[in-house]
């Protein structure tokens, strides 16, 4: 689980964060301002500063926040000048918005605030609905409000084109003041309280946030249009209240409570997706009339409150349908305030000691938790007292951290020239953490290593923000001190850490104030302590004023390190860490191992000459299972099974599985040699714990042996044992090789197969139904690999995972699993059911259908009844983690309540009602979660939609970084930096700008990057090379006629794409000089996934594959006859199937012995030329190198 942070404000207004993985409060990176209130979410934090202004702090991420501005240029044709700017009097403006009603000159489009910057200049969008336009992006129409086409016709009298420009939010990792100039009825009086929530009301990509505030006069305000792409929102609007409000709390979902002066609470009702502001208020009386409510905090389905006498109260019975709840329950403890965070976890600030308390034991079933536990984590700044060893450790954990290139962090700027001039001579050439290390108690107060960290980061990208965040009215920081940097100037001699190996130890002498954010960071550090007058002594604990857990995800059973002092002061802790940690090398430990080894030897040696008592061991496991019988009518029949294992004299093992059944009172049996078994697939559903066993013969028949056990444990035991036997008989063990072929079933189970050299041979090719697949723990939707052993996966919840090099996990334990590199993995997916209604003249739409109709609650097909109460998670491994909610993101669109209309049931649905529609349906979704284990580690924090790793041909240079491209779940294209065999997770993402969201990406040999956009067209990325990992620009490639592409895969040279109707296309005419190719050629249909490898081999997952017993969907197929001269191949060879979803063969570069490498590469030398039809002209002259040849 990635770490998240808890935000808190201390009594002095300093903002700190505490990571769920950390032990120290870290000073907020932008620490100039002092705050009264903060309210956090995972991506940002809103706060009210001491100047009574509202600020938002957007956490930095590798993916920028960017928004498109567009303007249309309109022209009318006249006989004299052709198309020109001469309009009819009734016409629109020459420059307008899309409707033509608004005048919109290019230079009139301004940035909304100074927290935005332009990404580039205006340019013409030449992409028109997935098709490239000609002649400068013009689209033509007869008259202005009309349909535009890309072709100019005889009657085209007007034309227009779209100009686009991107702006980018730049004030990240810094407090950005919310502009207040453009507010309607004058700015509200100063704000008193503020709360952010509502992120679960709408899903991404909207990502709307509800920001509510209460002013000093007791009015309630709502910030309009706050969302992930628009972090500042647009304006404040007043929400009427029946009384004067003092405090407000907004939950992640639809709860909103307000406290009134009179001590009652107001509860907002009617908050939903279409009306995030809600509709009405209702009043909840305080628990006791003499002690009114002074503070409330709400979560998804909990409300906590504090009354005037500082008692803590829990509201019983709160949920979406009843936001008021039923009654108050008094809890123990006296608190100043409480705050409910993610997962309804609760934090509070104690009345007496002002410490932050965490409510322990809060689970979905017990929302009120068990006990308050004080968080005793110390601040980083306090740590500097403890001297060397602890700060050394801390330095280690800082710099082990991923360096997120966030130059626009905070460096407090306002670098007076005088200050800089005062600084001692040529700047101290100190590595960054010296800032942290030697800071002694003298200047340890407010800024601490927090700032030290900033400086370290700032080294990497000197950001432009350093200059701009300056003029902020930060009242306290600019304590213009003539005294230069006391901490550093006074103690340069005590810098013990100068030899620590820093990631970025470069540190330029800072003569100029402008160019070096790091130096400004330093100077500010020297300054800060002067302004504050040593607020706390050496040993007292921090005093807190406010805490916000809205961005802090604590899993119910997670272990936190917040509750122990890690000061490094206590000798016991020190000795412990010193004696235990280097235990690996301690003498006593070595001796124990040595003695144990000797003992074993001694005990065995004497008996070596005895013969083995049993020469050939036969080992039998028997049990009762159910078997899906081979004859009709097919049903589960009870069988006895026995697994016999023989160990031959040579140690080789072989096993036979016997299945004893009774038919017509006659005893029969079936046997399977385990060395013939090709795969064992668990098939879990709501009722049965079953698994399927395939042999090559059974694969061809599309008819596996299916067995079911009564309990999950029983099934796992059998599965693990059978798998172990299969692997033993084939002598496959340990981790998969780097060349392994990976695949995933529709249940998310992961399988891996070792490719034999014959697999891609041109003659005597190994049929792919003979491939042996073994399962690896974990749960994924997508897996991609390359031949240097880098494997990435994507879960159903879009989490990115990287393979750790282990094997086993899941249900495989003991010998079948590696002891290290196995981690917990979780995945979340949605179960969908449909609510169907028919219209009748009396009551309109109702849940009373015709007798012939489908179930009123059904699955997508309508054939099976699925009620809200009766629908179970897909298997017993899954548990519900949310309630049912309407899904609005269904294809075809929905109305405001999520309904889709159609004329009759099995029909196409649309999102609006017409006269002819008699039926409607809506989709309900419910999330369920699975927890398993496997050799996978999460790559936080960006969720992915697709990923691709460069395939490497056998002879290729194996040094250097591995190119890895991905598409985020929002459609951003990303390029991973720093990926290598040793660091398969890489270091950071590089964002690659696009004009629209993308869905699929593939990087082939020679760094050819192809991608598919959400409109179904393909794009080629120019000039990608190891030195220019992100390339320079996109070339638009139209999709095949009337088809929308959904996936692309690029091998060494071959480019294949897949459209939404299951057609597989080959790109013709791809040459080094013209890497975009010329046209699409149809290869096959019924394809749902394609993977093209480094040998240009083509593998797909196909549907409707025939077998002798049944058809099979989701079958692995291998293209036969693929030759350099015949890259499209001839036919398909069918492999394992029946529910496969994904395959990657991009790691397999194992050729057959007869080399054909020369043939394949000859075509690929030659001078790269100038690629034509660039998708944007803004780049002016394009650099003339296409893909680099290998």
């Amino acid at each position, binding site marked *: 689980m990635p770490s998240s942070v808890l935000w808190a404000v201390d009594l002095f207004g300093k903002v700190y964060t505490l990571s769920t993985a950390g032990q120290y409060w870290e000073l907020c990176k932008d620490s100039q301002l002092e705050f009264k209130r903060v309210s956090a979410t995972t991506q940002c934090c809103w706060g009210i500063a001491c100047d009574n202004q509202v600020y938002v702090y957007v956490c930095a991420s590798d993916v920028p926040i960017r928004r498109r501005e567009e303007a249309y240029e309109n022209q009318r044709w006249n006989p004299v000048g052709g198309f020109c700017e001469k309009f009819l009097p009734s016409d629109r403006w020459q420059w307008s918005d899309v409707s033509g009603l608004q005048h919109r000159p290019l230079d009139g489009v301004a940035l909304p605030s100074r927290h935005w910057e332009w990404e580039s200049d205006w340019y013409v969008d030449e992409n028109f609905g997935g098709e490239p336009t000609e002649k400068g992006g013009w689209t033509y129409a007869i008259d202005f409000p009309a349909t535009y086409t890309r072709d100019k016709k005889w009657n085209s009298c007007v034309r227009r084109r779209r100009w686009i420009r991107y702006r980018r939010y730049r004030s990240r990792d810094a407090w950005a003041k919310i502009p207040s100039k453009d507010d309607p009825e004058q700015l509200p009086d100063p704000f008193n309280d503020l709360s952010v929530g509502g992120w679960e009301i709408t899903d991404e990509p909207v990502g709307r946030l509800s920001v509510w505030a209460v002013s000093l006069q007791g009015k309630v305000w709502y910030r309009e249009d706050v969302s992930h792409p628009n972090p500042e929102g647009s304006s404040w609007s007043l929400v009427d209240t029946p009384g004067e409000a003092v405090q407000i709390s907004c939950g992640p979902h639809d709860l909103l409570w307000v406290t009134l002066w009179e001590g009652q609470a107001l509860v907002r009702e009617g908050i939903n997706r279409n009306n995030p502001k809600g509709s009405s208020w209702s009043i909840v009386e305080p628990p006791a009339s003499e002690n009114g409510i002074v503070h409330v905090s709400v979560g998804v389905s909990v409300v906590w409150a504090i009354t005037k006498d500082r008692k803590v109260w829990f509201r019983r019975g709160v949920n979406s349908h009843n936001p008021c709840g039923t009654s108050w329950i008094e809890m123990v403890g006296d608190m100043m305030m409480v705050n409910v965070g993610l997962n309804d976890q609760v934090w509070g600030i104690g009345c007496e000691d002002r410490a932050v308390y965490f409510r322990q034991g809060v689970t979905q079933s017990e929302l009120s938790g068990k006990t308050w536990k004080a968080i005793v984590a110390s601040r980083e700044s306090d740590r500097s007292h403890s001297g060397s060893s602890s700060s050394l450790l801390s330095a280690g954990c800082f710099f082990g951290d991923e360096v997120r290139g966030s130059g626009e962090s905070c460096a407090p700027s306002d670098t007076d020239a005088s200050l800089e001039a005062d600084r001692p001579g040529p700047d101290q050439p100190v590595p960054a953490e010296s800032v942290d290390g030697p800071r002694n108690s003298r200047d340890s107060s407010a800024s601490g290593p927090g700032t030290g960290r900033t400086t370290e980061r700032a080294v990497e990208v000197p950001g432009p923000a350093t200059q701009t965040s300056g003029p902020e009215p930060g009242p306290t920081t600019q304590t213009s001190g003539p005294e230069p940097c006391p901490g550093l100037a006074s103690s340069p001699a005590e810098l013990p850490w100068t030899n620590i190996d820093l990631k970025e130890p470069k540190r330029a002498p800072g003569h100029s104030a402008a160019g070096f954010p790091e130096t400004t960071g330093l100077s500010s550090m020297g300054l800060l302590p002067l302004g504050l007058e040593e607020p706390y002594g050496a040993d007292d604990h921090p005093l807190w004023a406010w805490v916000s857990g809205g961005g802090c995800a604590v899993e119910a059973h997670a272990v936190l390190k917040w509750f122990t002092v890690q000061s490094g002061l206590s000798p016991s802790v020190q000795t412990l860490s010193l004696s235990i940690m280097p235990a690996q090398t301690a003498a006593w430990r070595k001796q124990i191992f040595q003695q144990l080894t000797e*003992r074993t030897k001694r005990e065995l040696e004497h008996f070596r000459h005895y013969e083995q008592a049993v020469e050939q061991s036969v080992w039998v496991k028997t049990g009762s299972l159910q078997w899906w019988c081979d004859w009709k009518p097919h049903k589960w029949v009870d069988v006895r099974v026995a697994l016999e294992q023989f160990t031959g004299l040579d140690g080789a093992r072989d096993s036979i599985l016997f299945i004893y059944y009774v038919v017509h009172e006659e005893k029969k049996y079936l046997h399977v040699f385990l060395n013939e078994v090709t795969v064992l697939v668990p098939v879990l559903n709501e009722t049965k714990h079953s698994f399927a066993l395939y042999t090559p013969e059974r694969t061809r028949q599309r008819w596996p042996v299916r067995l079911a056990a009564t309990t999950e444990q029983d099934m796992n035991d059998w599965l693990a044992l059978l798998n172990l036997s299969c692997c033993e008989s084939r002598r496959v063990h340990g981790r998969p090789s780097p060349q392994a072929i990976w695949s995933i079933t529709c249940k998310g189970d992961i399988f891996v197969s070792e490719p034999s050299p014959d697999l891609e041979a041109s003659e005597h090719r190994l049929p792919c139904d003979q491939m042996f697949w073994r399962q690896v723990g974990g749960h994924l939707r997508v897996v991609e690999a390359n031949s240097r052993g880098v494997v990435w996966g994507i879960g159903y919840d879009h989490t990115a995972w990287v393979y750790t090099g282990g094997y086993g996990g899941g249900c495989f334990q003991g010998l079948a699993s590696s002891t290290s590199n196995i981690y917990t993995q979780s995945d979340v997916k949605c179960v969908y059911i449909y609510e169907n209604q028919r219209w009748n003249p009396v009551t309109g739409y109702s849940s009373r259908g015709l007798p012939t109709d489908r179930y009123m609650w059904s699955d997508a097909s309508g054939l099976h009844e699925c009620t809200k109460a009766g629908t179970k998670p897909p298997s017993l491994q899954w548990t519900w983690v949310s309630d049912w909610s309407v899904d609005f993101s269904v294809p075809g669109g929905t109305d405001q309540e999520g309904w889709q209309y159609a004329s009759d049931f099995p029909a196409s649905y649309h999102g609006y009602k017409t006269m002819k529609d008699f039926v409607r349906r809506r989709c309900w979704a419910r999330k369920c979660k699975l927890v398993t284990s496997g050799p996978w580690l999460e790559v936080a924090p960006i969720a992915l939609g697709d990923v691709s790793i460069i395939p490497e041909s056998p002879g290729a240079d194996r040094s250097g970084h591995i190119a890895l491209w991905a598409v985020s779940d929002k459609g951003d294209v990303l390029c991973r930096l720093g990926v290598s065999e040793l660091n398969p997770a890489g270091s950071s993402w590089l964002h690659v700008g696009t004009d629209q969201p993308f869905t699929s990406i593939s990087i082939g040999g020679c760094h050819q990057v192809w991608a598919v956009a959400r409109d179904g067209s393909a794009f080629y990325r120019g000039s990608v090379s190891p030195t220019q990992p992100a390339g320079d620009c996109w070339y638009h490639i139209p999709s095949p006629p009337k088809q929308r592409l959904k996936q692309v895969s690029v091998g060494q040279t071959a480019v294949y794409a897949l459209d939404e109707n299951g057609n597989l296309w080959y790109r013709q005419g791809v040459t080094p000089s013209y890497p975009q190719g010329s046209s699409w050629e149809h290869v096959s249909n019924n394809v749902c996934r394609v993977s093209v490898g480094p040998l240009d081999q083509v593998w797909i997952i196909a549907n409707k594959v025939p077998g002798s017993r049944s058809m099979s969907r989701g079958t692995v197929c291998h293209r036969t006859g693929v030759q350099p001269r015949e890259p499209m191949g001839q036919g398909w060879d069918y492999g394992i199937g029946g529910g496969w979803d994904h395959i990657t063969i991009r790691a397999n570069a194992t050729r057959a012995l007869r080399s054909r490498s020369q043939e394949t590469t000859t075509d690929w030398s030659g001078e790269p030329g100038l690629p034509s039809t660039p998708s944007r002209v803004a780049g002016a002259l394009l650099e003339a190198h296409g893909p680099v040849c290998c």
Partner: protein
Amino acid sequence: KSFPEKDLLHCPSKDAVEAHFMSCVKEADALKHKSQVINEMQKKDHKQLWMGLQNDRFDQFWAINRKLMEYPAEENGFRYIPFRIYQTTTERPFIQKLFRPVAADGQLHTLGDLLKEVCPSALAPEDGEKKNQVMIHGIEPMLETPLQWLSEHLSYPDNFLHISIIPQPTD
């Protein structure tokens, strides 16, 4: 036949062995965690512990036993170390006392500390020659070995550290 009744406890059935084993495990956990861990386990976990031992399936056994070997992060070890010291020279069956793995000052106790406290006669005097061997699992760990580590890694399946004091062989 001729079972050494007076030396060994004679268990009449397999169930009795199992019951005896479980009672030892429970006793050990009472010392280590005030029985919290063992009481939170289900019957089937107990069963798995025994079946694992009986069938010589280490992974099966350890999957459960691992939990018995954990201790809260905020502490430095178990509450008390379950151990039994056997001496060949005395009539006492064994020595078993309450002994904490960590000293009041935070120092980890070692095997030597334990013996000094509980069975000083086993230790060789400062200057004198070594008269006894301190054996666990047939090996002689160094006296500097932290007791907590020994308890986690060299305990017998019943979760006790069985320490034998035997006279130094004189050959």
